[in-house]
């Protein structure tokens, strides 16, 4: 049996006080000082450290925010002086897309590296925007799995990046030309460039180490110089229009490079290939109104091996008044490439709006070969996504003070938790390979289709604007 992909993890506790969803408010002035105080009976011992919390004034609010929201103390207090409320600091986390629940679950995964498990069923809306408007399928009795019955240990999350010729030209028994280079990754995830607002030297070094430890690749600006040259195979330099060049010797030790889209990309790829023929080159295409067309056009060029399409941080089309979501744009690109008969020749990487591990699986089902992320890793470091990263504004997560080991540990934990959750989904779907998940919309159900098939037949047309 081949070596199993495994990410080493260990718990990495948060540096900052936890921000819980619930807070307890205690109106002390009416306290009866009774001997059977409900605080002593807290199942989670939240009140036991009360004195310690109060002594440490900087963390005084943590006591109230570590409440688990079971209402037991509130409902049993002799005088009814305890109240529970939603923590306003919790509600301020993230934004409309990166909801507080996403931030919270990312923090938990970055701390524990575990799959979040809870009881009492699903608590959220029926469906929603973007990836929340699709469900993955699963296998039952009549079709136990698509790939046969296998344990989780046989599920492969590996993917290949590069151009895959649809046929071989042979001269006798030998190929006329050598096969194009391929980069294999153990899971369909690449760490994308940090946005300029979040670029910190310390963060770059931690990302480099995380990519090395997980066997993945991080896309770094061409000006970045690794702290350890051994990590170069886990780095893909990004060559923007004005980026400084990467020394040839350094480039030769990398496996993947990313180039900004432009009129002369084909020539640029040729230049790079002259230096390092075995490198795989990706073209970064921003998903503006012209992005989909451009990605399809590039796929038709013989020199292009990989296209990296990037939506905005919330998964939306860039600079559009009525933006389409990443999932729909991916489906369009994927389907068009199939119609043109070139889908299998091109690797499609997709980024923007990938906030949860299910988004990774869903983006792949919609047509990506693999996904790219950056914000989830930042959130793993306790970032609130408060969007106030500017000089003179204090960062609530004190990101400028992060410790290298802490940062690598948290990011590694998050990636490990995502990997495990991808396997959970693939196991339920009966899929044995992440490669086969790509574009397999037969293993998914879409809100609009289910609504039409179920309610459309019964109740007519869906009202406009919904």
């Amino acid at each position: 049996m081949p070596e199993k992909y495994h990410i080493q993890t260990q718990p990495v506790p948060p540096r900052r006080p936890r921000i819980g969803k619930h807070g307890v408010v205690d109106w002390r002035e009416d306290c009866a000082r009774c001997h059977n105080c409900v605080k002593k009976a807290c199942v989670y011992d939240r009140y036991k450290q009360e004195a310690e919390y109060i002594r440490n004034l900087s963390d005084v609010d943590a006591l109230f925010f570590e409440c688990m929201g079971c209402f037991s103390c509130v409902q049993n207090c002799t005088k009814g002086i305890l109240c529970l409320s939603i923590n306003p600091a919790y509600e301020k986390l993230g934004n409309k897309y990166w909801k507080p629940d996403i931030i919270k679950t990312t923090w938990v995964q970055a701390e524990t590296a575990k799959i979040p498990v809870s009881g009492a069923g699903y608590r959220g809306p029926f469906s929603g925007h973007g990836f929340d408007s699709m469900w993955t399928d699963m296998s039952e009795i009549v079709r136990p799995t698509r790939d046969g019955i296998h344990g989780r240990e046989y599920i492969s999350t590996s993917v290949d990046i590069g151009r895959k010729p649809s046929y071989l030209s042979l001269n006798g028994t030998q190929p006329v030309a050598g096969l194009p280079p391929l980069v294999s990754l153990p899971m369909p995830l690449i760490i994308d460039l940090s946005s300029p607002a979040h670029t910190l030297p310390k963060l770059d070094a931690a990302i480099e180490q995380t990519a090395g430890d997980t066997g993945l690749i991080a896309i770094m600006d061409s000006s970045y110089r690794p702290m350890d040259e051994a990590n170069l195979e886990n780095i893909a330099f990004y060559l923007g229009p004005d980026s400084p060049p990467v020394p040839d010797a350094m480039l030769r030790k990398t496996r993947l490079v990313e180039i900004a889209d432009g009129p002369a990309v084909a020539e640029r790829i040729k230049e790079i290939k002259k230096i390092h023929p075995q490198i795989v080159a990706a073209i970064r295409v921003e998903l503006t109104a012209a992005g989909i067309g451009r990605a399809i056009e590039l796929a038709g060029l013989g020199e292009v091996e990989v296209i990296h399409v990037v939506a905005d941080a919330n998964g939306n089309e860039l600079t559009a008044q009525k933006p389409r979501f990443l999932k729909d744009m991916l489906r369009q690109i994927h389907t068009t490439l199939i119609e043109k008969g070139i889908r299998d020749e091109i690797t499609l990487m997709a980024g923007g709006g990938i906030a949860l591990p299910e988004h990774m699986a869903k983006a792949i089902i919609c047509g990506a070969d693999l996904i790219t992320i950056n914000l989830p890793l930042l959130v793993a470091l306790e970032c609130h996504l408060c969007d106030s990263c500017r000089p003179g504004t204090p960062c609530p997560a004190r990101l400028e003070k992060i410790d290298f080991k802490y940062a690598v540990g948290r990011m590694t934990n998050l990636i490990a938790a995502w990997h495990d959750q991808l396997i959970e989904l693939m196991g339920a779907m009966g899929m044995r390979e992440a490669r086969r998940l790509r574009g397999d919309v037969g293993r998914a159900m879409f809100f609009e289709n289910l609504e039409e098939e179920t309610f459309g037949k019964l109740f007519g047309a869906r009202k406009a604007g919904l």
Partner: protein
Amino acid sequence: MNTLPENTLKTRVPQEEVERVVKPAPSRYRNEIAKYIVHRSLDCERCGKCLEVCTHGVHVRKPGFEYFGEPNHHLCIGPACAKNGHYCVAQCPKQALQIRENPMYRALGDCRWSADLILATWKMAETGEAPSDEYDFNYECGDSGGGFDKLRFKFPKQPPIKLDADQIDTSISLNKRKDGRPEIKIDVPWYGGGMSFGSVSNVTQLSKARAAVAWNTFTCTGEGGYMERMRPYDDHMITQVATGLFGVREETIQRVPIVEFKYAQGAKPGLGGHLLGDKNTPAVARMRETVLGISLFSPFPFHSVYSIEDHMKHIDWVKHVNRRALISTKVSTPTDVDMVAVGSYSAGTHIVHIDGGYGGTGAAPDIAKKNIAMPIEYAIGKVHNFLTDEGVRDKMTLIASGGIRSAHDIAKAIALGADGVVVGTAELVALGCVRCSLCASGRGCPRGIATTDPELCGKMDLDWGTQRLVNLYSAWRKTLVGILQRLGLRSVAELRGRTDLLMHLDYTNDIR
């Protein structure tokens, strides 16, 4: 069921009766969570006007006392009282009273189980009646923004025929195959879902069983084994044969009138059952014949079932072991759930139980709860129509679960095509669950419902738990009868598949 066919139950214990009587079962907590809070300022002169005008018993002054005690906030109906002339705030001569929405209310519940729905369910469990309209609880649906929460009945202005409540039949038959096995009828179109010992306490399991006896329906053991203490309720038990086979023996299969094969469950379709290590206590480990303290993940799928033919072998085995048992097949809701249902019929099942993704009471990975398999609202019609097209609809009982929260959800599920439903979370809410989701690990449920921790289990009493569920069922049945009366239907069976009686708030509803 006194005369049992040959080769079934070898040892039978006397069966206990439980009265179907509604009795008050107030909250076991000192302070009820209220929608509104009443504030009395220092301007109060203790004239007692508020006490005089309030018809809901909100204000409290003990005999012989001059000062008022803490109001019964949970009885206050809020500013709506202004309409009826009993509004204490308006009538207080010193304007010393204020009524506000309780800020704590927002912290209770979620999209699927809104605070209104939780409090209304508590009221039903306490009184056996739906809360009065004055309380303005929206307990017909939740706030999820889709599915049942967007479906409404098209009630005619006047019922087409006038029916008294006692003329309406809410019973359903569970064996439509006419295969010589017992014709089991239950008095209400629902039964209790499988919750294993380990995931919930034995008090919870027994309360469910006793309520099932009172209402002549069923409850299910789940996959954690069959407690000896449940034997006096054997005639109302379903035992589950799930992929983990915990505690499954031929003798336990022989005890019951219905055996359920659990292929999958809605909260975690495609994954096996989960019992995290903390909840694998000595009692649970003994029952499941496992090692103490280890997490128990049931495999998925049944590794002995790769086809409908294999499924049939399973069913034949159980039918042979228990000659009087009906077979239920519980599956979740993938795209091909309709094919699964027909396949299951051909394998010999009596009940196909489809479990949608938005329900579930036990531990489940969060990623599975939301993302795998379709919501039950889509699956019911799909299966009902396919069974009808295949000509077997009237030979099979279709049971739906996975997000059934109220009598209105039950009626909607039946109108979409189910014969009846299975409920789980609603029962736990009736027992005091606040849906904090903390039951999965550690000592388990802090409210003493979904736990086997000896101290936490002691928070709930069996008689109280039974009564709460008996009351809830009573309130639901009354509501369901009310719906059927308004629609002019004589039985719940007549409601099945009547999608013409439904409308969807997001659609034009112009199809005739």
